[in-house]
């Protein structure tokens, strides 16, 4: 199986590469339209700022390439946020695959710290990514912006309020958490994605 990771100016893709390696997959990292379109599965991971990453994506015409992909695509963390319509981070229009806006966490109590960082549990899981998983499976999050619960939510988590831990629409999948850092649960989610 050919797995490609979208190459752009977001950090920390190597932990995704390592996670795939542990599953016996050696991914290619590319921004080449033809190579991406030929891959069986695409990962779109990343940490970074929505405005700077989105600007880079537009300048390199990656926006159209990503939106036109027909095979299963998995956005991770900022990847999920960039697949939405708009982000409050830098007030930027994003790819618009999911018709929902990304908002900043607004803490109401002293104990609500931003970024939301650490292990939180998943609920309301549905669809192929969460096959065989039970409620209260924990996954690892690091983020200050979130996607509200919407029509495309396939897993929820709760921090300050319920939010979309994961989205899916057609061949586009996304997780706000880091499956590559989420122990056995994360490994299972990656396996489920590769098995699609």
């Amino acid at each position, binding site marked *: 199986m050919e797995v490609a990771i979208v190459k752009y100016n977001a*950090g*920390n893709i*190597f*932990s995704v590469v*390592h*996670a795939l*390696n*542990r599953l016996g997959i050696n991914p290619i990292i590319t921004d080449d339209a033809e190579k991406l379109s030929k891959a069986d599965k695409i990962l779109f991971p990343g*940490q970074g700022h929505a405005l700077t990453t989105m600007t880079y994506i537009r300048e390199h015409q990656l926006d159209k390439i990503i939106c036109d992909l027909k095979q299963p695509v998995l956005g991770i963390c900022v990847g999920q946020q960039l697949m939405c319509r708009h982000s409050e981070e830098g007030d930027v229009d994003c790819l618009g695959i999911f018709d929902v806006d990304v908002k900043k966490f607004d803490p109401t109590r*002293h104990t609500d*710290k931003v*970024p*939301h*960082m*650490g*292990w*939180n*549990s998943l609920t309301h899981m549905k669809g192929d990514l969460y096959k065989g998983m039970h409620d209260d499976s*924990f996954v*690892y999050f*690091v983020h200050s912006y979130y996607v509200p619960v919407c029509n495309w939510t396939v897993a929820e988590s*709760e*921090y300050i309020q319920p939010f979309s831990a994961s989205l899916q629409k057609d061949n586009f999948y996304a997780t706000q958490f880091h499956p*590559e*850092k*989420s*122990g*056995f649960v*994360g*490994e299972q989610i990656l396996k489920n994605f590769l098995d699609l």
Partner: protein
Amino acid sequence: MLAKRIIPCLDVKDGQTVKGTNFVDLRQAGDPVELGKAYSEMGADELVYLDITASHEGRKTFTELVGRVAANINIPFTVGGGINELKDVERMLSAGADKVSINSAALRRPELVDEIASRFGSQVCVVAIDAKFMEGTWKCYVNGGRIETERKLFEWAKEVNDRGAGEILFTSMNHDGVKTGYANDALAELADILSIPVIASGGAGTKEHFRDAFIEGKADAALAASVFHFGEIQIPELKLYLKNEGINIRI
């Protein structure tokens, strides 16, 4: 709800894990990658690797080790020891670390905290503080607890919070290695004055000590070393105990 974290700490010298009692008298405790992997399989939520090597050669060995940890372990990990400037941070992050912990370097040049936060994000920047309670005050120490500074714990913690640190790793030197529990009063005060998570360190001897750090000390995470390395406390048992005590824990 966000889970409270259990974090084994691995002190590494010349590629091997060691643990000091009150920062001296080092004992060997296994291969860092194997040990980290075992901990993650047992349910550790995060790992901390501290490089206590001084030599240049040792630093290179440690960077290679960080790469091996990243390749083999599927939970987040923090690295610390010998991080003095942005290029050290960059080297550790490119080797695969999720976060870096800075201590003496931040006390010598506090702007380093701002620089790490703005370049790599707050979540990357853990500020470790070693402090000792003497004559009614908590004083901060540098160089692995060897040199006293004029900085006071609470003021310094608040300052690095405001400068953009993502977390505080507070070690009570009075409690470290003596296994009589964490410095819960000081931890609770940190939780009250800070807007970032606090990791309790120093003093774990029993399962109850972890519970107390989370409840009385209001800590977000608890770190320990020798009780885990020598099997005095088993992580699965500890986590089950904490869950039964009503603490939100990842099982």
